[in-house]
């Protein structure tokens, strides 16, 4: 990334392409939200395209996409390591912030639509129900990552401290998967698929770290 920007003014078209690709990814990432808003305003069984239990549908939809974006953001580094597609790196921050965005909507739909601002119920959920405790812990840990995602913050913290802080995502991802697994009744396939993907993404990093001595690869 830095190699290219060194060439500065000479790469105007490159800059433009880079900006355009960012806008494109930005819009693509909004599609799930656009889709669910569209559903909310189309007719369907039980009132709208969200179905007979719209609160449940919305909350699960947003939770699904929060987890998907989290895993997609986590996939950036392994993709760069394995495929050497350096260009994916420029979307990493945006993907991570989208994960945070969808988690925030997931939490908002829970507070507003699910629990309808009954704070006592919300509080007892958080302390009593392990899967919500786990979800909440993941959310809280995501906050500092979102806050320190700007270039200014990276500078302020210093690259090393910034990297160490952002390593808590290796804890957040398994917790988010656990949250999903615990929330489903019985032993279901879907949460295990997500957990499997998260495991692979983390294993690649570990494998790479052990392998990547100077001269290797």
């Amino acid at each position, binding site marked *: 990334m830095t190699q290219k920007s060194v060439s500065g003014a000479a790469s105007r078209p490159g800059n433009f392409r880079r900006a355009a690709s960012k806008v494109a990814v930005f819009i693509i990432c909004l599609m799930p939200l656009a889709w669910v808003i569209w559903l909310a305003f189309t007719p369907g069984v039980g009132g709208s395209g969200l179905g007979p239990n719209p609160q449940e549908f919305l909350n699960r939809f947003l939770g699904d996409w929060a987890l998907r974006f989290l895993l997609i953001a986590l996939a950036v580094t392994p993709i760069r390591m394995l495929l050497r597609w350096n260009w994916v790196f420029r979307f990493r921050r945006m993907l991570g912030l989208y994960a945070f965005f969808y988690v925030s909507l997931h939490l908002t739909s829970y507070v507003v639509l699910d629990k309808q601002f009954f704070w006592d119920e919300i509080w007892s959920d958080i302390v009593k129900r*392990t*899967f919500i405790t786990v979800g909440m812990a993941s959310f809280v840990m995501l906050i500092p990552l979102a806050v320190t995602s700007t270039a200014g913050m990276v500078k302020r913290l210093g690259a090393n401290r910034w990297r160490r802080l952002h390593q808590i995502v290796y804890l957040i991802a398994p917790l988010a998967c656990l949250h999903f697994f615990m929330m489903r009744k019985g*032993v279901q396939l879907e949460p295990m698929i997500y957990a499997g993907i998260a495991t692979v993404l983390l294993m690649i990093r570990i494998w790479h770290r052990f392998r990547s001595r100077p001269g290797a690869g």
Partner: protein
Amino acid sequence: MLIRKPRSNEIRPSEITPRHVFENRRQFMTGVGMVGLGAIAGGSLGGLLAPETASAATTLATIKNDKYTLAGLGEAAPTDKVVASTYNNFYEFGTGKGDPADNSKDFQPLPWTVTVDGAVENPGTYDFDDLINPHQLEERVYRFRCVEAWSMVVPWVGISLGEVIRRLGPTSNAKYVAFETLYDPERMPGQNRSPIPWPYVEGLRMDEAMHDLSLLTVGMYGEVLPNQNGAPIRLIVPWKYGFKSIKSIVRISFVEDQPPCTWNIANAREYGFYSNVNPEVDHPRWSQAKERIVGTGIFAERRKTEMLNGYADQVGSLYDGMDMSKYY
């Protein structure tokens, strides 16, 4: 296209065919084509009509049971029929709420038999009709409360479980009634996976089974039970969480000891044998104090869940002196 296709398959350019034969052949092919088209049209029409005729056109001859009417439920509004038959749990057809309706379209419930065994005077394998026909079908409007904190109001059609049990004649050793759902992964595709152990089994204490509220259900909304709701025969015990109301029953056993129940086997901490609706005993993963009435919209307020789902006056005495938080 339909007519041309077989021709191009059968007559290769290398083939030398006398013209008259060709003409005949062409005629013949046209004939086949027409028959083929007819057959296809007939087949697809039949395919399209079959599920509809099976689910919609079969109205049941019922009487309304005056004790269990909509008016008796206070401010309740009946749940939309489409909602009640497209949003439900029936893991035999998949774990999503829409899966049962999507994946049970080809399920043929009839012919159906129910095996009756155990401590009973009239054991045997009963044909569906032989089990149901001696009794009067009645419609009863009940609240249906799922353990997942959602609820519906459904007009079920069925026969009194107690009357059926009396006819079958349990012996004095029969302390519990156990039920079993069909296990047939070819017909119930959800059984190809194992979110819960198969076959699905459930049970009631004898006095619960004999209670007037317990309904052997064969229909809803005046019509034959849709496949996705447990066709052709299921249980409805309205004061218990929905999963106690076992679907597609193939076996009724009269037993001396408390029978195993699927969700209790899957997770004993979360699902007890009794599983009575109780706003004061939370599910470990969520509160049971309130319920969302499905189909009432995104901003609808949740309803306070009633003790024993509002049937406390009728069934409360079954649990006198029992610690309901211990025997959940």
